[in-house]
C-alpha cells in the first residue's frame, strides 16, 4: 500500500498534465507540480480548500450538471468546455478528465487531470474566424466574377483581353461565335497568330498596322473596319476597337472589342449601289438633252432671234437641272450615311485636279486665274475619296460662280501631322457678316446672291455635313465685294500616325 502510494505520487509529480485530487466533500487533497505551474497556486495554499476557488463563472452550467451526474453514479467524465481562473485572475481553458477513485466499493477521492488547451482553443477560434473570412471573400469574389462574367457575356460584341505580349487572357462567348473558337483552345495563345485581318480587297494587314499594335505600342485607342479572314468562309467585316490597359503609366495589356458589321456593310453597299445607278440613270437623259441643244446651237443661222432665245433658255435650264441633280445626289449620299465605314487611301491632289477638269469650261469662260498649291505628299488615309471630291467640288464651283470675270480662285492643300487642310479662296462677291453663320443651313441663300446667282442652297449644307461626318471643321472668312476664304480641316485617320510610328521603330 505504501509503495503503491509512493509510486502513485511519483508518477503524478513528473507527468506534464496538471492533476488535482479532492475528497468527496469536496476538499483539495493534492495538486501536482504541473498543476501549480498551470494555475500559480501552491499545494500548501490550496490544500483543504474547496476547488471552487478555480471557478471562473464562464463554464456553462450544464457542464457541471453533467459532471455531477457522472461522478455521483461513479462514472468518469471528460469535457473540453471548462474554463478556470488562475491565481492571478487570468482565464484558461482545459481539456479535463474526472475519475473517481474507489476504496472498498465506494468513491473516496476524485482525480482531475487537466490539460491546458487555451492556445489550442485560441488557434481554433482564429482558424474558424479565418475560414469564415475566407468563405466570405470567396463568396464575394465569386459574386464579382459572376457579375463580371455576366457583364462580359451580355455585351453583344466580341471582347478579348490580352497581355502586353499579345497573349489572350480572357474572352467572351460572342468572341467564340465571331472567330469560331473554343475558349480553352486559345487562352494563353498569341492573338496575332490566331487570326488574320485584311482590307476590303483582301490584302492582309501587317501586324504593325493592326489596331492592337497601336494600343500596345503607343497607349492610344485604335479603331477601324477590318475584314476577318476565315478559311473556307466569306470574310467578315469587323469594327475593331483596341484600347490599352495602362497601370502606373505603363501599358500592361489591351482590351479589344470586335463588332460584326456585316449587316451595316451590306446596307451601305445597297445604298451605294442605289446611288450609283440613280446618278447614272438621272444624268443620262439630261446629258442627251444638253448635247442635243448643243448640236442645234452649232448651226443657228436659220433661227429667228426668238428661237435662239428659246434654245438658250432650254440649255440654261438643262444645265441648272444637271446641277440640282448633282446636289440632290450628293445630299442623298450624305444623308444616307454612305460616307461611313469607307476607309481607303486617297490623294486630295489628284482629286483636286479631277474637280478642276470638271470646272475647266467655266473657269475659262470667266477668264478666271486659277492657282493650285499642293504639298508633295498630300496622301491621306481612311477618308472617303468621294467625300473629298464633294467638298472640293462644292467649294470650288461656288468660288468660280461668285467670282467675277478676270477674278482669281485658289486652292491650297497642305497637311500637318494630324490634319489635312484644304483652303479655297476667291476674289468674289463675298458673304455679308450676318449671313456667315447661316450659310451652312439647308436651303439658305445669302441676300447678296439670291437673285443674281442660281443655286439650290444645298451646296454648303452638304459640304459642312460631310465635314462634320468626317470629324472635321470648316471655317469662313469673308469681306463683301473683296472675296471669301473657306478653310477645311479634316483629321487624318489613325493609320497614318500608326505607320509613321512603325517607321520610327524600324529606323
Amino acid at each position, binding site marked *: 500500500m505504501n509503495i503503491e502510494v509512493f509510486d502513485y505520487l511519483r508518477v503524478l509529480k513528473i507527468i506534464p498534465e496538471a492533476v488535482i485530487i479532492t475528497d468527496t466533500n469536496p476538499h483539495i487533497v493534492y495538486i501536482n507540480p504541473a498543476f501549480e505551474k498551470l494555475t500559480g497556486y501552491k499545494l500548501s495554499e490550496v490544500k483543504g480548500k474547496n476547488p471552487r476557488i478555480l471557478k471562473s463563472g464562464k463554464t456553462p452550467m450544464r457542464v457541471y450538471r453533467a459532471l455531477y451526474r457522472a461522478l455521483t453514479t461513479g462514472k468518469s467524465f471528460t469535457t473540453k468546455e471548462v474554463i478556470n481562473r488562475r491565481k492571478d485572475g487570468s482565464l484558461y481553458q482545459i481539456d479535463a478528465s474526472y475519475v473517481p477513485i474507489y476504496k472498498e466499493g465506494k468513491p473516496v477521492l476524485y482525480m482531475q487531470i487537466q490539460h491546458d488547451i487555451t492556445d489550442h482553443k485560441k488557434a481554433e477560434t482564429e482558424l474558424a474566424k479565418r475560414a469564415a473570412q475566407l468563405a466570405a471573400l470567396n463568396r464575394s469574389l465569386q459574386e464579382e466574377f459572376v457579375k463580371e462574367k455576366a457583364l462580359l457575356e451580355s455585351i453583344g460584341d466580341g471582347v478579348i483581353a490580352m497581355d502586353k505580349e499579345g497573349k489572350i487572357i480572357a474572352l467572351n462567348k460572342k468572341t467564340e461565335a465571331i472567330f469560331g473558337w473554343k475558349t480553352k483552345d486559345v487562352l494563353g495563345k498569341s492573338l496575332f497568330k490566331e487570326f488574320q485581318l485584311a482590307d476590303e480587297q483582301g490584302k492582309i494587314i501587317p501586324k504593325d498596322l493592326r489596331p492592337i499594335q497601336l494600343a500596345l505600342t503607343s497607349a492610344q485607342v485604335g479603331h477601324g473596319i477590318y475584314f476577318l479572314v476565315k478559311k473556307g468562309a466569306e470574310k467578315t467585316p469587323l469594327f475593331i476597337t483596341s484600347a490599352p490597359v495602362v497601370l502606373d503609366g505603363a501599358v500592361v495589356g489591351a482590351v479589344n472589342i470586335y463588332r460584326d458589321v456585316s449587316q451595316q456593310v451590306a446596307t451601305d453597299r445597297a445604298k451605294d449601289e442605289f446611288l*450609283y*445607278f440613280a*446618278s*447614272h440613270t438621272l*444624268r*443620262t437623259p*439630261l*446629258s*442627251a438633252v*444638253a*448635247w*442635243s441643244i*448643243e*448640236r442645234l446651237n*452649232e448651226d443657228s443661222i436659220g433661227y429667228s432671234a426668238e428661237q435662239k432665245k428659246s434654245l438658250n433658255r432650254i440649255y440654261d435650264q438643262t444645265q441648272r437641272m*444637271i446641277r440640282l*441633280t*448633282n446636289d440632290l445626289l450628293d445630299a442623298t449620299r450624305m444623308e444616307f450615311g454612305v460616307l461611313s465605314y469607307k476607309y*481607303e487611301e*486617297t490623294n486630295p491632289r*489628284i*482629286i483636286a485636279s*479631277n474637280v478642276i*477638269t*470638271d470646272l*475647266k*469650261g467655266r473657269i475659262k469662260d470667266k477668264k478666271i486665274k486659277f492657282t493650285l498649291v499642293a504639298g508633295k505628299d498630300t496622301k491621306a488615309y481612311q477618308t472617303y*475619296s*468621294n467625300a*473629298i*471630291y464633294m467638298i472640293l467640288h462644292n467649294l470650288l464651283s461656288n468660288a468660280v460662280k461668285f467670282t467675277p470675270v478676270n477674278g482669281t480662285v485658289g486652292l491650297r492643300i497642305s497637311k500637318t501631322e494630324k490634319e489635312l487642310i484644304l483652303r479655297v479662296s476667291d476674289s468674289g462677291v463675298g458673304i455679308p457678316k450676318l449671313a456667315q453663320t447661316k450659310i451652312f443651313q439647308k436651303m439658305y441663300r445669302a441676300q447678296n446672291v439670291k437673285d443674281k446667282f442660281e443655286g439650290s442652297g444645298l451646296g454648303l449644307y452638304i459640304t459642312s455635313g460631310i465635314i462634320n461626318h468626317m470629324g472635321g471643321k470648316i471655317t469662313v472668312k469673308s469681306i463683301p465685294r473683296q472675296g471669301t476664304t473657306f478653310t477645311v480641316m479634316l483629321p487624318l485617320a489613325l493609320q497614318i500616325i500608326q505607320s509613321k510610328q512603325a517607321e520610327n521603330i524600324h529606323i
Partner: protein
Amino acid sequence: MNKLVKKVLLIEDESVLLELLSGKFKDSGFEVSCAQSAEAGIKLALQNHPDLILLDLILPKMDGLTMLKKLRKDEWGKRVPVIILSNLNDQRKVSEAMKIGVYDFLVKSNVKLSDVVKEVREVLS
C-alpha cells in the same frame, strides 16, 4: 485612206448618246466606229486599232473597267489612249481607272460635246 484622218472608237450603250457623239465626231472630221457593249468594243478595237477609245463604264454585260483591263493585256492595247466618258462621278472608279491607265475621266452631264472633241484632239496632237 487618208492617214491624217484619226480613228475614234466610241463604246456607249445608250443609243441616243452614241448617235450624238458619233454625229459630233464625224462632223469634226474623225473616222468613227461604234460599239454598244464591252465585248463588241474590244473586238472592234483589236481589229481596227483606232487612235483613241472613248469608253463608258456601265455597259450591259462586261463593264468598262473590266474591258479596259483586258485591253491593256494586248501588245497594241497597252498603248492606245483611252478617255472614260461616263455619268458616274464616283472617285473610287476614277482612281481605279487611273490605276489601270486612262488619259482622262469625263462626266457626260458635266461636259459639252465640243469639250470632248477638244480633249480628244489634244490627246492625238
